[in-house]
């Protein structure tokens, strides 16, 4: 367990980044190494997240998995009509996970998971070309999930449990493209809310038609984090009744959309496992980022997002080299939920391809070190956000974006 503590030292924060929208698909080093498949895989307590129905098929009485990913993500932006250029200076974010599963009886397992499936950390240089849309954002959500897994028979099990979500958001942008105080400092607002909580649930089943084939499905409900009485801090506001931006409270809601996963895993040639997952994220719930300021003098902020539901296709392969080593590799294609004309720089995500690899090393009878690595590739894209308005006039923000993310991860599994 000391090593787990040590990993936590590496983890500077639980902030997170990447994947379609602000979904952060980094919920286990074993799964990520296989393209983040897992709805039909049974190999560790990571199933608490991927499909609790599989927990009851784990061989050990107690299984624990914990780990961290170091997310290095970056976005480059330019607009050649104006020569504007920006590159994000995102801090390293380190999403963590911890899962435990306990085989209570032959037919019942219980589990507990803590993970961070949503988040975003994007930092542009202050007052960059798109600063009226975002200077920086730090969004975090931590899910705590209890699970039961019930074996109906050797071929079929069900599982699920409640999720308690707690989140925080800190978002800074300039008020307009040009408003400044007397000394030319751009007028800006920071909204900050933390300790925003809500409940959700997850449920799934697993079906094993043969000894080698598993089929799984899992659904995680949407959780809408409704920030109430958050703090809005206005800076560099001209002293004028025409700019009545005084510090105030705000309400806003941010949806963590529902996600459905279906997939299969197949063991072959003794040492090989193939896995495929299909994910569907119900992003259409994210229509708008609306910030309702308590002070009636301060105009509310309405930022259309109009996301669409999006799919992810995941492929993974595992090879048990020796008793001691297991190698993994994977690929996935992640569709963006962002529609054309709604490409906002706070989540500059177009379609992406993830290339993954990793390994596990057994250390003694009980411990396993899991390492993984993800390179997430985004194509360069010309995109715009068309729904920014000044005095009722549309002022699209255009540019060319190129993003990538590079995510090494390290975890430990313990079994008894």
């Amino acid at each position: 367990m000391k090593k787990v503590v040590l990993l936590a030292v590496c983890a500077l924060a639980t902030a997170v980044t990447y994947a379609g929208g602000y979904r952060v698909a980094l919920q286990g080093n074993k799964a990520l190494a296989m393209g983040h498949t897992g709805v039909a895989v049974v190999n560790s307590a990571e199933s608490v997240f991927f499909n609790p129905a599989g927990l009851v098929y784990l061989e050990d009485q107690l299984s624990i998995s914990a780990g961290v990913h170091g997310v290095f993500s970056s976005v480059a932006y330019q607009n050649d009509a104006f020569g504007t250029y920006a590159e994000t200076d995102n801090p390293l974010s380190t999403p963590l996970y911890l899962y435990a599963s306990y085989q209570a009886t032959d037919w019942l397992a219980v589990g507990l998971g803590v993970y961070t499936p949503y988040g975003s950390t994007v930092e542009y240089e202050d007052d960059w070309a798109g600063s009226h849309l975002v200077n920086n954002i730090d969004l975090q959500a931590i899910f705590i999930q209890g699970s039961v897994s019930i074996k109906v028979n050797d071929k079929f099990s069900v599982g699920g449990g409640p999720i308690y979500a707690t989140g925080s958001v800190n978002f800074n942008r300039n008020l307009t493209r040009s408003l400044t105080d007397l000394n030319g400092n751009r007028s800006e607002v920071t909204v900050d809310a933390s300790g925003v909580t809500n409940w959700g649930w997850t449920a799934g089943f697993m079906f094993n038609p043969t000894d080698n084939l598993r089929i799984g499905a899992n659904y995680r409900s949407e959780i809408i984090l409704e920030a109430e009485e958050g703090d809005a801090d206005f800076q560099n506001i001209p002293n004028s009744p025409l700019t009545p931006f005084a510090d105030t409270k705000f309400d806003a809601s941010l949806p963590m959309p529902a996600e459905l996963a279906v997939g299969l895993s197949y063991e072959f040639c003794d040492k090989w496992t193939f896995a495929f997952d299909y994910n569907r994220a119900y992003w259409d719930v994210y229509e708008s980022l609306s910030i309702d300021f308590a002070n009636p003098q301060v105009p509310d902020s309405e930022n259309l997002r109009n996301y669409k539901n999006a799919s992810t296709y995941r492929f993974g392969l595992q090879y048990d080299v020796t008793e001691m080593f297991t190698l993994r590799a994977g690929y996935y294609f992640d569709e963006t939920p962002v529609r054309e004309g709604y490409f906002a720089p706070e989540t500059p995500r177009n379609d992406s391809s993830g290339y993954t690899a990793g390994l596990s090393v057994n250390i003694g009878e009980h411990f396993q070190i899991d390492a993984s690595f993800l390179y997430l590739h985004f194509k360069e894209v010309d995109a715009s956000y068309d729904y920014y308005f000044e005095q009722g006039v549309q002022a699209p923000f255009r540019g060319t974006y190129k993003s990538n993310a590079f995510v090494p991860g390290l975890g430990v599994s313990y079994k008894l």
Partner: protein
Amino acid sequence: MKNTLYICLSLLAIGFVSCEPELENPVNEEGFYDSGSANLANYVAVGNSLTAGYADGALYITGQENSFPNILAGQFEFVGGGEFTQPMMDDNLGGLLLNGQQITENRLVLSVDSEGNRAPVRLEGEPTTEVTNGPTGPYNNMGIPGAKSFHLVAPGYGNVGGILTGAANPYYARIATSGNATVLADAASQNPTFFSLWIGNNDILSYATSGGVGEDQTGNLDPTTYGPNDITDPNVFASVYSQEVDALSASASGGVLLNIPDVTSIPYFTTVPTQVVPLDAATAAQLNAQFALYNTQVLPGLVAAGFITQEEADLRKVTFSAGQNYPIMTDDDLTDVTQILIAQGVPAATAELLGQLRQVNNSDLIVLPASSVIGTTPNPDIPTNIVGVTVPLGDELVLTAVEQDRVATASASYNATINAIANAKDLIYIDAKALLKQIDETGIVYNGGVLTSEFGTGGAFSLDGVHPTPRGYAYTANVIIDAINAKYNATIPKVEIGNYPTITLTNN
């Protein structure tokens, strides 16, 4: 334990090194944009307040940062442009001090009173920019607020000792390389590879903004005899302008000459309507009764006696009606009949009132400062003395048709000179006059709005009604970039003018 930490950190380090995304054709890579045949390494801008970045009735830091030459120089950096230096003021108030005494006013800001009325007011505060303690030039930006064409070549224009007598300019005295230096020599000494010259505006503008109280000096070839509000002789203009272009283009690969806009395109002259006095029927009738004798007896009598023509008599009639009315004014281009009336036994005070009196008409332009005067009572003890109604507007508040003609004639001549020299020297000629006319008449559509010359709200003009806002200057820069790209086969990127501010809101 140590191993785990080591692995953890090295994995993170690998990630850090490999992570930067690269655009296929980064704009900040050498060679993405091209300066064509222009050499923009050392750009020098010469002119008046419009080059300096003057706005809101003052020169202050954020205005200078958004001067059109500074915006241009920022874009020139994409194609080999070097550092562009400006004589930055010491604060954002804008007032100048001469030996500790404030000699120019602070900037204007838009203020809102308790009843919601909006008006430009001077920003309060003690300015800190001391003329005698200024930085020494020369600077890439040699825009000197207030300079006329001939000032640029006038030795002593930067002599501190001449400021209070009007012989020197405090903005130039602050940065002049010596008391005897000229703006032109200081500019040319920098061996510009590229230059802009926008001069001549004040050669007519000070006459116009002062409502034509100065003289039209056409025919007088000695500018040292001119008053501050006079119109410069077009031959004087042509002579010094040619000299200036010669000096600046000696070392330059190219340059831009901007012409002189019409005064009728700027809000200083177009904001206050001519029918500015609201009257009810009873007041109008009462006023008409007061002027009845003047209209029906005095004027026909003056015509009959041959002192004035019938045409002038018609012009001088004063009539009011219920609704919006033309204010009365003093017009120094009318025959002064004061003494004639006194000789006829009219009381001196009345004779003086009627001496050059007429009503404003549609061909006049009332200047912006009149808006705070019309309808006021200069003497609270005599509430019936109301400016524009029973007290005439001073000549300095109205630019009459005659005066406008003088301005138009002179500026047409200047512009012909500028155009001819641009052609002769193969320089870019920017028709600023046509651009301002377009902004005034149709506006300029940009991403997120329309730039117009509407005072206070149009976005193009600052609160002094004469000088552009940063957004207006940014548009000017874009027009110049377009012209440079066309003339020299360059591909310099423009700026997004919606990102530039307009007027500043502040309550003192």
